[in-house]
């Protein structure tokens, strides 16, 4: 390869130039691995949004009632980060939402995984739970909010119960899929190596199901994050959802926008953390 045509590391990082290998490919359209990060354009896109916001703020193009100015929003953020919003610290609003999601997913996993295993491993289990799971699966968790409020009111337990339900069926189905995906030759091999049924459950079926269970966890986290915000919109005095709902009542568009941005960022961060964890905890995923 001619050295003069070699692009700089920076332009490769930015995605303006292809890496060495991709440059040697003659067929690129249709080859998904030849599509690079395009980081430059990501930066451009974010910068364009911010620039539009700045321009709109400087020239006061939009009524603050519909969309706040960027400097006003910044001042508001500094203010509620310091003083809190309606007597609750910003961190508490964030923390309680995250705590609810983690609790819901935790209990959902605790019950859902054994349930999925029962469905994947025994005819009785499958027969008993299949109608319930298949019936609950298509119901959006938000549709359960009224019933959960009727049953448990609007206290903490009600919200965690809702999130528990939201993750329960996802985890059940994921665990069942994980159990069903075990290659029979692995089970046969284990029996021929003298393993008992319990040992096969623990040392073959469980580790084999972990990748699917983890995918379920990721999905659960995403669904529960969306559900918690919606549930807090309906009934809560703390949490990001309630924060933006109360802010709306006071016509504080800037606080609403801050809440939305934080919700988006945290959802994104959760997904990144889960991906990291997956690569770290289940390096064998897809390698069987």
């Amino acid at each position, binding site marked *: 390869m001619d050295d003069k045509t070699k692009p700089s590391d920076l332009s490769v990082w930015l995605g303006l130039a292809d890496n060495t290998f991709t440059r040697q490919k003659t067929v690129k359209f249709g080859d998904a691995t030849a599509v690079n990060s395009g980081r430059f354009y990501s930066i451009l896109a974010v910068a364009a949004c911010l620039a539009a916001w700045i321009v709109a703020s400087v020239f006061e193009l939009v009524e603050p009632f519909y969309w706040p100015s960027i400097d006003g929003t910044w001042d508001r953020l500094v203010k509620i980060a310091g003083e809190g919003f309606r007597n609750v610290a910003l961190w508490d609003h964030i923390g309680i939402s995250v705590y609810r999601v983690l609790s819901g997913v935790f209990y959902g996993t605790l019950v859902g995984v054994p349930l999925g295993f029962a469905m994947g491993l025994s005819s009785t289990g499958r027969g008993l739970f299949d109608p319930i799971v298949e019936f609950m699966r298509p119901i959006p968790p938000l549709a359960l909010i009224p019933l959960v409020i009727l049953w448990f009111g609007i206290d903490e337990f009600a919200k965690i119960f809702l999130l528990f339900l939201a993750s329960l069926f996802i985890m059940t189905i994921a665990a069942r899929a994980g159990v069903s995906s075990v290659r029979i030759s692995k089970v046969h091999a284990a029996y021929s*190596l*003298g393993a008992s049924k319990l040992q096969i459950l623990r040392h073959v079926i469980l580790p084999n199901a972990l990748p699917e269970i983890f995918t379920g966890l990721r999905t659960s986290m995403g669904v529960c994050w969306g559900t918690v915000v919606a549930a807090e919109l309906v009934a809560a005095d703390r949490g990001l959802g309630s924060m933006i709902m109360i802010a709306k009542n006071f016509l504080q568009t800037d606080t609403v926008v801050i809440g939305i941005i934080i919700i988006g960022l945290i959802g994104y961060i959760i997904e990144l953390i889960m991906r990291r964890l997956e690569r770290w905890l289940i390096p064998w995923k897809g390698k069987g």
Partner: protein
Amino acid sequence: MAGIAIDGISMVYTLPGGGEVHALNDVSIDVDQGEIVSILGPSGCGKTTLLNIIAGFLSPTAGEVRMGGTRVEGPGAERGMVFQQGALFEWLTVARNVAFGPRMAGSPVAEATEKVERLLTTVGLQGFGDKPVYQLSGGMQQRVALARCLANDPDVILMDEPLGALDALTREKMQNLVLKLWKDTGKTILLITHSVEEALFLGERLIVMAPRPGRIEREFRLPFPEQALSQPAREVKAGPDFVATREEVLSMIWNMEEEIMGQAEADQG
């Protein structure tokens, strides 16, 4: 230790639609202790079915398998299996895969570790113990499978096309390894293959099966494994006896294949 008596095995699969597949018809084989026996036949002639019955994963429609006088009713650690591929535990390291049997039996860690080290050396994988199995090549993975099987010290080793997914060169090397293990351990080995050369090289006895229904077509007694203990493998395979027998068996299999093709055409017409 004991050989295996395969006595009048028939196997009929009932299909979900109600049809029946006669996979095996009255198959009897007596395998002596310490013998290496290869089974060859066109695909679909019931080889895997037979091995699964011996391993105890399937119970036959008629007949029985006995080991040392006791009837085989299910899988057991005295009958080790080596599969074609994909039967290693990808979540465990090489050493942990090999140690699986002893660990399940509750043997002390130190003892198991020592055994694993020894076996990895035997199969030529010393130093690979801490690697995840999915980082190994196909040939190395089959070495792990062999070591894992040996770690349990089974009386009989059942192999279902263990080298079938390997490239030709790796395959030859692995054939030599299997032969060496047979010599060194004195295990009874039953090996299924679809390679005629492999069947001749790794069979003191070669059983050729025919399809529809699966049955034993012919049996050969072969000197080649014995020869290969004292002679280089390539020399054995190039010898006039070997070549002549290979051609004989090949033409037998060819005729069967032609018959199958003819039947298939007749079925369609």
